[in-house]
């Protein structure tokens, strides 16, 4: 990695920690939300970026993580930390299940995107109707601010925990990309037949990516629950999180470790800016997001990370 990139990352990290420790509540709220989306997007990136399977329904994982931890706490009195652990496992399980059904049926590309969308919608409708999720009224977690309860009096502390999770997944992703598993993901993404001929079990490889991706995005759902202490079916399984996790990756830089983080922060900053300029017109930020998705695909297929790298290599042509 180039020195300039390391310096840039250290500066961003320092700024984030600074906001978490000393920033006003609105800034911390902004950061927590953006980082939760970043974490969900890191999950998407492992499956979509590294393994090449584009999901339009990552809400299925986010919502499962969020609901499992919320239901375990509110209905069964399970400790919040254990609840979150279960939520993450549930995300991995649902990822494996959806993957097993879809990939065994031979679904790829657009078909896979479609069926993930449909699974997320079925879960949303089911969560909206089932009594255990509180149906349309949603679930409220009891306010009980103790660290043992995964609730903190200081928003800054929670923000640092989310940041730590994001950085942990960043390290995990960087590491995986350099291992045999990472090479298998890339091979499956680039050419399934060639991967098979080289001894790679394509189904198992995709299921690994699904499980890991599901777990990470479910972790984002768990953190959402712990921070906002409220859930309903449109938050947990709504298409917003499917879209934002995909969008953050595309904007930030697909199949790059830092892409989802860059993308999530950039998009949320842009969303805030739009609201400041255009007032609180519902949907106006999403109009912009949609157009950015089109523009990013057209003009910056490697996202902001790609633009940064291109700029770096222009400055030092023979690096």
């Amino acid at each position, binding site marked *: 990695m180039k020195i300039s990139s390391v310096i840039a990352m250290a500066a961003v990290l320092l700024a984030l920690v600074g906001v978490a420790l000393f920033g006003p509540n609105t800034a911390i709220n902004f950061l927590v939300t953006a980082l939760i989306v970043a974490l969900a997007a890191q999950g998407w990136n492992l499956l979509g970026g590294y393994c090449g399977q584009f999901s339009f329904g990552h809400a299925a994982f986010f919502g499962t993580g969020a609901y499992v931890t919320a239901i375990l706490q509110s209905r069964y009195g399970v400790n919040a930390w254990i609840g979150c652990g279960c939520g993450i496992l549930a995300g991995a399980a649902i990822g494996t299940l959806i993957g097993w059904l879809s990939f065994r049926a031979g679904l790829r590309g657009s078909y896979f995107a479609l069926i993930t969308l449909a699974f997320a919608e079925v879960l949303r409708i089911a969560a909206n109707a089932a009594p255990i999720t509180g149906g349309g009224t949603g679930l409220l977690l009891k306010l009980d601010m103790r660290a043992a309860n995964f609730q903190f009096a200081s928003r800054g502390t929670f923000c640092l925990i989310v940041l730590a999770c994001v950085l942990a997944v960043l390290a995990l992703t960087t590491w995986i990309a*350099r*291992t*045999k598993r990472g*090479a*298998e993901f*890339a*091979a499956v*993404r*680039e*050419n399934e*037949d*060639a*991967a*098979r*001929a*080289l*001894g*790679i*079990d*394509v189904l198992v490889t995709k299921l690994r990516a699904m499980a890991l991706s599901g777990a990470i995005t479910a972790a984002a759902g768990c953190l959402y629950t712990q921070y906002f202490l409220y859930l309903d079916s449109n938050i947990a399984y709504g298409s917003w999180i499917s879209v934002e996790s995909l969008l953050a990756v595309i904007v930030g830089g697909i199949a790059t470790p830092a892409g989802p983080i860059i993308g999530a922060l950039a998009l949320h900053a842009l969303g805030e800016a739009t609201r400041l300029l255009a007032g609180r017109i519902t949907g106006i930020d999403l109009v912009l997001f949609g157009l950015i998705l089109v523009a990013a695909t057209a003009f910056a297929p490697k996202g902001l990370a790609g633009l940064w790298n291109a700029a770096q290599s222009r400055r030092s042509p023979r690096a």
Partner: protein
Amino acid sequence: MTLLHVEGITKQFGGLRAVDNASLSVPPGTITGLIGPNGAGKTTLFGVISGFIPPTAGRIVYNGADITAHPPHRRARSGIARTFQIVQPFAGLSVVENIAVGAYLRHAKRADATRVASDIAHRVGLGAMLHQPASALTVAGRKRLELARALATAPRLLLLDEVLAGLNPSEIRDIIPIIQAIRAEGVTILMIEHVMQAVMNLCEHVYVLSQGRMIAEGTPQAICTDEQVIEAYLGHGAAGQMQAHA
């Protein structure tokens, strides 16, 4: 003793019988050729041997075990490697990364896989292009990459599907010694090839497939004078005309 035994393989695509009761044997340590006119079913038979195409009838015995039901990745793990006639590079990866995917099959560590990949790249003549994207290679380069990736899996049996097709004579001259060196290391090779010069130079034994049927087998010299083979390539009556001219 045979390493690979293909027994009465038939493959039916709808009304078309692409391969019809074809059998062949490959003794260990040899180079065996599979030739035949275009559309004879050679690539289909390769697909059946490597596990990509399930046969309608017949069985594949490898190293004494029936592997007819094994999926491709399992065959690769047991030592059968193949190249594709239509090259299938991992276009977004670099040359060394492409080859490392194969090397990872026997080497779990990145450092080992990369070292093996780089060694093999040098052997097949891709040493200067290690870090170029695979999509930037020429046709000859891509053929070499196919070969390198398959070699990286440390195979016992190597299936080569027209690795020389589309290359110019000097490129062919460069690759033939590479294939001979691979055999010298004890890798058994079954190759589909159209370039007769290469078949004559490399193969101990040749099978001829025509319209899905195995019509002849023997040494390359014997095959070249076989009437049935000449007619399969040049049309009915061709053998007689050639003899009349001789």
